């Protein structure tokens, strides 16, 4: 229950049209990109600009109301769900405030869609490098909150490596600037700590992000393998050889079949056990030698065929198929689990073999579509959730897969975040003391724990830190 009058006061700030309270209108905000979890928010407020956003956060601070910042709701860990609290939607704040072509950075509001930023700077031969597969929908604010990745992060780095500064409003309503364009700051790396904090540390008002020059030459290759193991070995060989492709993605047969049945059909060979999508970019000089080397390593690992995209349209088609693969799995079955784990790249053949074994033992179909070059797996399982037996097997398979990744020295999320979906795995990765240290940092930003409560760190790990740090110091 919200304190009396909050709804009216919010309406005074943003206008009544942008405060939603009726059950029907809240329904759309009960889930993000991972609809297996549904939490009912008490209210949704949609500030239209910086001043409104600050006023909203300050009001919620005064009235001691918890809230969850939300971008486009494309997250895959349930991070943007609000359980009886307020959703602050930032999708209306979508202006590109400044583009500095010479110094190659842009200042954008949090609701700017990732792909729209690239579209805005394209006339200058620049782009925004992090390219999560949801880039046509997800927002820069959400990318900052999740420290989003994407295929091209293999060479260019994740969101952390591309955000120079942030203006944020903290839980207490105070507005601060973190980071600087030169990377020069005094004090702790609060910018680095904030990026990936899943909406628990504050609300982004604007982000200054690095822009990257479009490479002079780009070659996109599709290699087709008779087994997953062969594709995994080719990946390990390419990485170990010291070539850094712009992207190196793998899709297995069930994924290929789903994509080829969708409107994003890319011409992937449906009889291949796996394909690798490899992109090389850089100066014109030397790129064709690299293409030849990659082709050789793929063939040495057992590739049946390797082809290079012949033109830009062909290249985009190959990428569209990859980027829409997760959505395409919707047509396979009525239910879908989406996972995100990372393993050391040398362990790919072994762990993928293990995942295949688990799938067979539990009689579930695992669709692998992932950032092979980073060792960032996305084992997804489409299934019929109305069959309790199948649902239980899927659940078991998922836990076994995650455990296998942890055992291989990996992590339970490379880019989707912990949210609520991965909370159970946190104690498997970190000691109680380490989890408590995370809570300690959170309490410095938000001593009342009103921002995105219940996410990222299991609640019981925070129990021992009940007192506000300021009071303890």
């Amino acid at each position, binding site marked *: 229950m919200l304190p009396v009058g909050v709804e009216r006061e919010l309406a005074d700030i943003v206008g009544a049209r942008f405060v939603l309270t009726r059950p029907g209108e809240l329904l759309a905000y009960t889930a993000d990109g991972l609809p297996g979890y549904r939490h009912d928010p008490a209210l949704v407020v949609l500030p239209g600009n910086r001043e409104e956003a600050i006023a909203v956060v300050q009001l919620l601070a005064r009235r001691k109301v918890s809230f969850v910042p939300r971008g486009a709701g494309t997250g895959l860990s349930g991070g943007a769900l609000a359980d009886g609290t307020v959703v602050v939607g930032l*999708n209306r704040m979508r202006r590109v405030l400044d583009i500095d072509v010479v110094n190659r950075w842009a200042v954008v509001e949090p609701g700017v869609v990732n792909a729209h930023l690239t579209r805005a700077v394209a006339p200058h031969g620049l782009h925004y490098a992090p390219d999560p597969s949801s880039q046509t929908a997800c927002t820069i604010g959400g990318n900052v909150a999740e420290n989003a990745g994407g295929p091209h992060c293999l060479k260019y780095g994740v969101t952390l490596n591309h955000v120079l500064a942030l203006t944020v409003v903290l839980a207490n309503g105070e507005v601060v600037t973190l980071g600087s364009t030169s990377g020069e700051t005094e004090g702790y790396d609060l910018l680095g700590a904030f990026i990936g904090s899943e909406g628990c540390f504050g609300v982004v008002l604007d982000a200054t992000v690095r822009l990257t020059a479009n490479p002079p030459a780009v070659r996109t290759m599709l290699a087709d393998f008779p087994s997953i193991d062969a594709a995994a070995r080719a990946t390990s060989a390419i990485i170990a050889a010291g070539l850094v492709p712009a992207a190196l993605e793998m899709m297995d047969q069930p994924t290929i079949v789903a994509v080829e049945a969708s409107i994003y059909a890319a011409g992937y060979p449906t009889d291949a056990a796996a394909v690798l999508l490899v992109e090389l970019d850089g100066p014109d000089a030397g790129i064709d030698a690299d293409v030849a080397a990659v082709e050789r390593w793929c063939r040495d690992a057992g590739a049946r065929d390797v082809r290079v995209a012949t033109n830009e349209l062909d290249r985009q088609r190959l990428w569209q198929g990859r980027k829409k693969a997760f959505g395409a799995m919707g047509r396979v079955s009525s239910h879908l689990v989406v996972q995100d784990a990372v393993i050391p790249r040398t362990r790919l053949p072994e762990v993928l073999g293990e995942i295949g074994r688990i799938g067979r033992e539990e009689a579930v179909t695992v669709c692998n579509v992932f950032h092979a070059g980073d060792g960032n797996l996305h084992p997804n399982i489409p299934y019929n959730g109305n069959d309790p037996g199948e649902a239980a097997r899927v659940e078991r398979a998922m836990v076994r897969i995650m455990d296998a990744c942890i055992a291989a020295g990996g992590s339970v999320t490379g880019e989707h975040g912990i949210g609520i979906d991965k909370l159970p795995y946190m104690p498997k990765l970190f000691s109680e003391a380490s989890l408590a240290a995370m809570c300690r940092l959170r309490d410095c930003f938000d001593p009342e724990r009103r921002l995105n409560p219940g996410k990222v760190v299991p609640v019981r790990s925070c129990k021992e830190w009940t007192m506000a740090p300021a009071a303890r110091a």
Partner: protein
Amino acid sequence: MHAPNATTPSAALAGTPLARAGAGLDLCVHCGFCLQACPTYLALDDENDSPRGRLVLMRGLLQGDLQLTDESVTTHFDRCLGCRGCETACPSGVPYGTLIEATRATLAQRRPLPAVARFLLRVFRHPRLLTLALAVARAARWTGVPALLARLPRDVSFPFAMLESTRGRDAKPSYAPAAVAEGPRVALLTGCVMEGLCATTNRATERVLAHNGYQLVDAPGQRCCGALHAHAGDVPAAQELARANIAAFERSGADFVVTNAAGCGSILKEYEHLLADDPAWRERAKGIAARSRDVSELLAARGPRRGGPVHATVAWDAPCHLQHAQRVVQPPLAVLGAIPGLRVVPLVDSDQCCGSAGIYNLVEPDTSHRVLDTKLARIDASGADLVVSSNPGCLMQLGAGLLSGGHRARAVHLVDLLDASYAAEAGPHAT
């Protein structure tokens, strides 16, 4: 971690069109890729006015969590343009168009449509009323009064500006289409608005088709295509119109049914779906649907034949029902490519709706105008003199917006542009 529970209809909605279409909801994985493809989400900023939001509401209705009488729910269905831009963004293939029409049909069983909509749909259903209404409109246009009224504030002026925007160009120099004896036989769906207000475009369509080797045949007895009725949820009316048209086109003996109105073409191709529950008509509907083509498809199949130069900077604005519903993307570009002298400039978001959407701009003017304003700003930014489209609703919406907003660009039908090119080739003396 899991996709939403498969939708099990509650007893309240059993047997409704929505319950029958409900399985389509299960395809949605909630990825949100549709949000930025939805003009009403972009205009209104609320996820309830997005495809994903509306699918959630549909599921809420089906599962009994929400009621058909709840206006805070139904208003979001009313605000859907039906442009189906979300369908070509959806990786999992949610049949959104089918679902929104089923929702509207279900709603129509429980509550009356708005008065304006009821009136318009009624007019389009009755040939005599329609003929009369269009004659009145033409007469009004002839007086020049709408041109004056179009200058008033947009709230009042828009319908007049739409009417004014249909005024054809003055007598064009014509040309003699290359005569053919054995080309495919095509029958033109003349369309209500097209024939009533844009007859010059219909004549141009006949000329350019003939010039590309098609034989035109008549199809007497054809009526309104029924698209407006189907989109609004008045399925019985749409079915009645579809049967009349199927019969007329069968009688014509045409190899192809061709239309220059993307909205009409879309429903022609969906006649099979519309009459799926009617065993007597299902197969006949399938036959006509399979033979239906947009004019650009037929032209592109023949090249089309190149014309004379037209010097203009143009931008293609794809009608939703061509791009998203019919998935016809390349043929219009091929037609533009056949016109020497054209400078074709890109139009950002050319695949997004202009806010016309059948009678939407008359029943939901506020949202329609917000959507239109975005489109007009994009057109200005493109630097085009002419924005080219191929659907009467879009052309009237764009034309009226450009006219009343004092913009430089003008809206023109694709076929009229090609016709002008052929005329230019023939020279000023051709007749």
